[in-house]
Structures are given as C-alpha cells and as structure tokens.
C-alpha cells in the first residue's frame, strides 16, 4: 500500500535519500515522544502524585524483601538493602515494561482504528514510559548507599552501559510481550507471573555468590542474573561488571528481537482487526 504526499500545502519531500532518512527519523522521534507522553499520562496520571508513586514503589518492594531476607532467611550479608535494590531496580524496568506492552495495543484502540501510524513504535513507547519510572527509582539506590555507608567508586562509570543493556533487554521483552498479549489474551496473568518468577529464579534476594555452586550455574541462564550482578558490581562491589553479566543479557535480547521483530512487522497489519 502506498501513500504519497504530493501537494503544495504540505512540506516538500526531501530530494536525497539521506534527507529522506533524516526526515523519517525525526518523524519517528516525534511520534515516539508523543505516544510516550500520552502513555505516561494515561497510566500514571498527572501532577506530583505520579512522581511520588514512582519514588515510593521500589522502597515498598525493597522493604518487603528486606524483612524477608533479614528475618525469614536470616541471611543479612553485606548491605542487604543495597543488594536488593540493585536487583529490584533493573527487574522493575523489565517487569513493568512487559506489563505495559501486553496492554499497549488494547489501550490504543481508538487511535489504531482511526488512523495510520508507525505501529512498530508501540513497544518502544512502552519501554520509554516505564523507563521514566525506572529513572526515578534510582533514588532508592542512592538512599541505600547512604544508609550502608557505601561510597561511590569509579565503577559508576560503567553505569550508562549497564543501563543501556537493561533498556535493550526491556525493549526486546516489550516486542515479545506486545504480541503475546494479543495472541494469548486470556493468559496475560500467567505470562506476568512467569516474568515475576524470573526474579526468584535469579539472584534477586541474595547475591549470586551466596548461592551454591550448582545453583549458580543454573541461575546464570536467567538473563536477569547478569543484570542484577552488574548493578551490584557498579554500586555495591565497586568493580567493573564481568563481561558475561552484560553480554549474556545483550545476546538474549538480540535473539528475542530477531525472533519477534519480523513477526511483529507482519502482525502489526492486523492490529486494527483484533482490538
């Protein structure tokens, strides 16, 4: 299908391929930002209430698990609160992005039924929406570092790369979740439980080193294991993340994108029929 803008009262088409590519990129960026802003307001409302929610949610989660680790498991270890926060922050990004992406097509039903737009941006918009809350949740890491007197080190320079891999993993999960949310509508709670389970099938509550040697080998298959450990290295251990901690989640995310993006490309044509 073809839609060609060819009139004097709309901007002229660029003369070169490079110009066309730049224009298309700028248009996609505008669209992505508009979709994300609308999604943020739709999901989190407006005003200070939403910032408060973003800030408090990780504290509530860490609080629950901290009690669990300290009193139930009786395995306090070094700075358990900070260690937990290092797992909860990256996990929350993946979890909330998956939850968002599963509903992303449904909540956009009015616009999907009314006009054409680049639907490939929907999962990216889910990722960006949740990464806003994710950035607010870093406050808990700062608070925990202060509470446990853990001073920042040069390892913090690795943080941008760790965050990028985390975002890449969340975006890949978003493409899969958007399609699975459409295909297996009735299984959404089960799919979310599966993602939640990955927190416990990884070194979420206690660090990888605290697990037995056999368990460690198995836990490494979980792509979130590398992420949790990378955040711990940067904030808690003060060392550079081990290469596998970033390369393994990156590889899994790339494989998921390879599998799901082409599928998404063909399925997006049917979105308006099924919403």
């Amino acid at each position, binding site marked *: 299908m073809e839609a060609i*803008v060819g009139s004097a009262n709309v901007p002229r088409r660029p003369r070169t391929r490079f110009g066309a590519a730049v224009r298309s990129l700028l248009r996609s960026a505008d669209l992505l930002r508009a979709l994300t802003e609308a999604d943020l307001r739709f999901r989190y409302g407006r005003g200070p209430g939403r910032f408060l929610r973003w800030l408090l949610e990780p504290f509530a989660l860490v609080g629950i698990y901290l009690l669990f680790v300290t009193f139930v498991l009786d395995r306090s270890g070094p700075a358990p609160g900070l260690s937990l926060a290092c797992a909860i922050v990256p996990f929350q990004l993946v979890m909330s992005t998956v939850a968002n992406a599963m509903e992303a097509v449904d909540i956009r039903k009015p616009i999907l039924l009314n*006009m054409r737009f680049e639907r490939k941006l929907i999962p990216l918009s889910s990722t960006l929406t949740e990464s806003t809350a994710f950035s607010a949740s870093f406050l808990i890491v700062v608070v925990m570092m202060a509470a446990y007197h853990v001073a920042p080190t040069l390892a913090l320079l690795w943080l941008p790369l760790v965050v990028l891999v985390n975002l890449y993993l969340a975006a890949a999960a978003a493409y899969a979740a958007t399609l699975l949310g459409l295909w297996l509508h009735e299984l959404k709670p089960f799919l979310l439980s599966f993602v939640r389970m990955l927190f416990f099938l990884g070194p979420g509550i206690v660090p990888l080193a605290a697990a037995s040697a056999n368990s460690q080998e198995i836990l490494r298959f979980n792509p979130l294991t590398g992420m949790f450990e990378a955040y711990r290295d940067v904030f808690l251990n003060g060392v550079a993340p081990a290469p596998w901690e970033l390369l393994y989640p990156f590889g899994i995310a790339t494989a998921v994108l390879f599998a799901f993006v082409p599928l998404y490309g063909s399925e997006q044509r049917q979105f308006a*029929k099924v919403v």
Partner: protein
Amino acid sequence: MISVEGVGVRFYFDRHLKVVTAAAARLRPHGSTKWGVRGVSFESPGGEGIALIGPSGSGKTTMLRLLAQVYWPDEGRVVVRGRVASLLSIDAGLLALLSGRENAMLLGVLGGLSRRGSRRALESVRERSRLGDAFEQPVSTYSQGMRARLGFAVAEETESQVLLLDEVHEALDHEFRAIVEQRARALVEAGGVVVASGHDHQMLERLCTRAIHLDTGSVRNDGPFKEVQQAYLAAVDAATDASATW
C-alpha cells in the same frame, strides 16, 4: 488520488468467533475466515465527494479503514496520494483519560504534524472545536458530538487532501455539521477527495456527487449519487416487501 484495485480484507476467527491475527489463527485450529470486502475496485482522480452507502455490515467501514491505511489489504492494491485525515470511529480516535488538549497534541502528531507544529496548532484546535473550558477536561466527560468536533478540528489542522468520514459526522449538531460540509466542499474544490459513509443520505448528498453502493463486501453500483441512492432504496424496498410477504 485514490486507486483501489480488486481489494479484499479477510478476518480470521478462532473457534469462539473472536477475531484473531493471521498468525494466531495458524496457532489455533478449528477457526474460520470471512472476507469483510472482496474484489472492490474504484478510482478517483480527486475533486469529488464519494458516498459509501449500503446496509450495516456491507463493508463501508472496512473500505474507509482501508483508505485510511488502518487495515492492509489481504489481496489487491490501494493507492492513496495525499495526506489523509480520518474520523472513523465513534470516539474519533480520542483516548478517554486524556484531556482535549492532550488528545489534540497526540492526534496532531499522528496526523502528520511535527510536535512543534502540533503544539502551535493547539489554540487553533481549541477555537475551531468550540469546546471552551471543556478542552482542558478529560475526553471521558465529552458527548459524542464534542468528540467528533475535537477530532474534526484536529483533522483540519493537518491540511489533508483526503478526508474520510464514517458516520461520525452524524453525531454533530446542526451548526457544526454546516461547518463540516463547508470545509468538505472547500477540500473538494481544491482538488481533494472526501469519502463519507452513513445512513443520513441528505447530508451525504450535500457532500458527495458520487456514490458507491456496497453490499456484502462487494460493489453493487457506482455512479452519480442520486441514481445509486435510488437504486439502493428500491432494493431495500423490494427486500422489505419480500420479507413482509413471507
């Protein structure tokens, strides 16, 4: 400006008769398929209004969604040259929890404006839509007419060459209907195309000189509005008489 060649749109259903995507249909056996429209062809060089008429379920909305590129054809080809503005759903493409302003911003960008352009157009949209203070309120508090007014006001800002209207205009009050008709006529005079569907034939006649009668997803008649409308109404009368006799 519009070229539709042997177009068909197929819907896939699972065994519970829920519409699913083609890939999902392959995963779920015992489903069925149905063509929403099939073998539809027509052309418009521009400078005309086309009414799609026919009973409910005849494929009017499917055809408009094809022209808006909301649906992709499963067979055939659709070419639309020019920027398209569309009001195709009863909620006019608006997200209920967002305010009129926020929706206008989003729809402007989706409609082809840059973010800056869309932001610049907000006051104009507010004025054109005549929503007053309601522009800042969530769209969930709007009546259907208010939604249609906002949707149309945004569509106007995108300076489109093709305008698609699916019954939405029928929710408008008389004053705003006159505005829609005036703008649609101006677009046609400028060489654009208006494609409208609905059951208010008087309004359609004022907007369109040509009509296409769709029946069970196929073109039954295509020609001057009055002729096609009369043939359609005669067919409706004949069907009503037949069922009354039965």
